[in-house]
């Protein structure tokens, strides 16, 4: 069984539409640790040693956050800058994160169609996430396709996220129980849309 760490970053969760419902919906899953970064570090002063210890204690690192300006909220960037130390996470002697699995769970305001050539965002989500891809690569981690929920601004009620929440739960459980085709998941575009394809079929007799 893999241990899953969800590093969650949202500066104004009170006004969140999707992230709030997603994070609340996974709290009860066994084997999943949620670290609410803005709640832990309201003054933006990060406890690096503690964060590193947490990373060591888990096998799957999920970054869940809104996709602000094609990236993450400021605190999560600060977290990357401080926690992924040279000599610890990468570079000479930096082998601590090797072999771990990582992915982003993000929400975007724009619709899926905006994230393509000719769309107003001009690039695909995977292209826009390439800094994360490369960060994972440098640290020797396995980077999977994101679980991206688009058109988040249209969400008004719980019912609007039921489908995505179900998918998210399924994904986390599959990661935990090693029931996922990692190669397929790494090659996919958006796990939220391609979940059925990457989930390994349950024991076939």
């Amino acid at each position: 069984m893999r241990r899953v760490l969800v590093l969650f970053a949202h500066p104004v969760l009170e006004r969140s539409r999707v992230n709030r419902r997603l994070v609340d919906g996974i709290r009860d899953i066994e084997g999943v640790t949620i670290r609410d970064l803005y709640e832990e570090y309201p003054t933006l002063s990060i406890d690096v040693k503690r964060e590193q210890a947490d990373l060591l204690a888990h096998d799957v690192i999920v970054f869940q956050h809104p996709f602000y300006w094609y990236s993450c909220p400021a605190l999560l960037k600060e977290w990357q800058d401080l926690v992924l130390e040279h000599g610890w996470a990468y570079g000479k002697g930096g082998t601590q994160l090797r072999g771990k699995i990582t992915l982003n769970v993000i929400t975007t305001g724009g619709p899926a169609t905006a994230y393509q050539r000719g769309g107003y965002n001009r690039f695909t989500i995977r292209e826009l996430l390439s800094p994360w891809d490369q960060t994972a690569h440098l640290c020797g981690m396995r980077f999977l396709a994101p679980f991206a929920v688009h058109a988040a601004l249209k969400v008004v009620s719980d019912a609007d996220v039921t489908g995505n929440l179900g998918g998210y739960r399924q994904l986390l459980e599959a990661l935990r129980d090693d029931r996922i085709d990692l190669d397929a998941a790494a090659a996919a575009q958006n796990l939220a849309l391609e979940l059925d394809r990457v989930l390994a079929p349950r024991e076939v007799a």
Partner: protein
Amino acid sequence: MTDSVLAQAFVYLCAAVVFVPIAKRLGLGAVLGYLIAGVVIGPWVLGLVGDSHHSVMHFSEFGVVMMLFVVGLELRPALLWELRRSIFGLGTAQVVGCAAAVAGAAIALGVDWQPAIAVGLTFAMSSTAIVLSTLSERGLLKSSGGQGSFSVLLFQDISVIPILAVFPLLGVAVASETEGGRPAWQSALLLIGAVVGVVVIGRYLVRPLFQFLAGAKLRESFTAAALLIVVGIALLMQTAGLSPALGTFLAGVLLADSEYRHELETDIEPFKGLLLGLFFITVGAQLDFGLIGSMPLTIAGMVLGTMVLKLAVIRLLGKIFGLDRPARWLLAFALAQIGEFAFVLLQFGVGNHVFSDAFAKPLIAVVAISMVLTPPLFIVLERWVLPIVSERGAKREQDVIKHADAPVVIAGYGRFGQIVGRILRASGFPLTILDLDPGVIEMLSNLGVKAYYGDASRIDLLHAAGCEHAKLFILAVDDPDEATKIAEHVRHNFPHLPIIARCRNRPHYWQLRKLGIEHVFRETFAASWESGICALRVLGYRAFTAQRLGQRWRQHEESIIEEFRRYEEEDDDATYWEKARAAMGEAERLMRQEHPTRLEEDGWDNESLRADQNVDAAAAEQQTS
């Protein structure tokens, strides 16, 4: 017209409300204010409290009775044990020494030895009420001199019991036959019996009563029970022909170690201040100007003689008991007057034929005058005596600073300065530390930190501390006036030297800012501010939201205090208050706006984006959910 209770109460309250604030404004202290109020409404000035002294005495007696109950309550065994040396050592020495000195002087003036001893014992007493009130009003109660005074006063309160027992024995000689009254031994026996009675009541009746009341959970009945005990014991003692004040004092002591002491103290506390005020007013009203006018020199001589004698004896005792110079002087000045017990003892003396009524009358005036003189005496002590004796003491011990060249000078290394200093030391900045508390110096030296004992308001010391070449001066002394003085000196003599200053409150903030100090910090602001943020978190706000709200509020507060500096400097009261109200409204508006669900003006807002979505997809990718 002034006979009714309401009218009397009205007069007393009026006097207190008018004179006490005036006296405080003039720097004379509340106690003197009450005394002046008493003189003014008394029979010799306005005559508002009725012509008969009796009613005034009646009030006075009740004030003392209540006060002694509270004093007794504070005399719990642990405190007694802690202060045992000063209570019984210094206390005994003071009572015996002063009594002997006064009695000796009286005998030298031709008084018989028995009344002389009685007067000596009477005049050895000091005023618990005036001294404790004045000391706490001036913040001196915790000083070593203040503690000494407290101990001696406690001992005096206790010693009244044996003194009351001794008086009847002294009386026999004057009136060879006790006329009508009880024989002396009977009085003494009665006294002991009454005391035992009070003890029995306190031990075996009061506790069950309180337990019963505690079970009923009625706050008022607790207060009522406390008052009932006081009044009841006062009544009992009066019936036995003894001092009610003494009886309630005993009752207080008995309840001091009961589990209901704190409850009682809280219940009685509001009465205490008011009743003490009443007591002081009656002392003022008691001054018999007719009598004083008829023999001014005799009375003035007795007042002066007694007080000088007591002052000299107590100062000497302070030295013998190892108090430092300022503490010795404080003790002597504090206890030089004659106390309220003297009224009781003088009456008791007359009653027991120790001396005649005519003999006692002027003595009562002497007692009252000496009490009235106490607050002015404290002013003399603080303005003229303490500066001299402290200066001399300080000069001797003032450390010589050899070649201080640290980049940072810290004046005041108490709770505030230490935090600043520790951060700087941890960051590798050498400090030159100045403090006036020998305890702090010693504590630091135990930690291996060198600090200098010295008064930072002295320019030579500032030079010696290396202000010439320092890069930063941290002004962290506790006393606001002292801080302002030091700030003025530093600004004047070392204009290049940046100052970071601690201030007490807003007016002090403005004062220091006016001196051109850029970095001024209100001493409790940061902690209160953090508590406010914590409060929001406990109330369910997200940590980061609470933090941002706090930041927003703080920016507002800091801009407001700067803006208000202008009105303060222009001394424009009307504008000040108008602006204050406006600022409060502004803060509320700001906070509500920053409310997590109603934010209007920041980058995380997505309401405008939602609207925009319907128009076109050309919006910037500030997308959130």
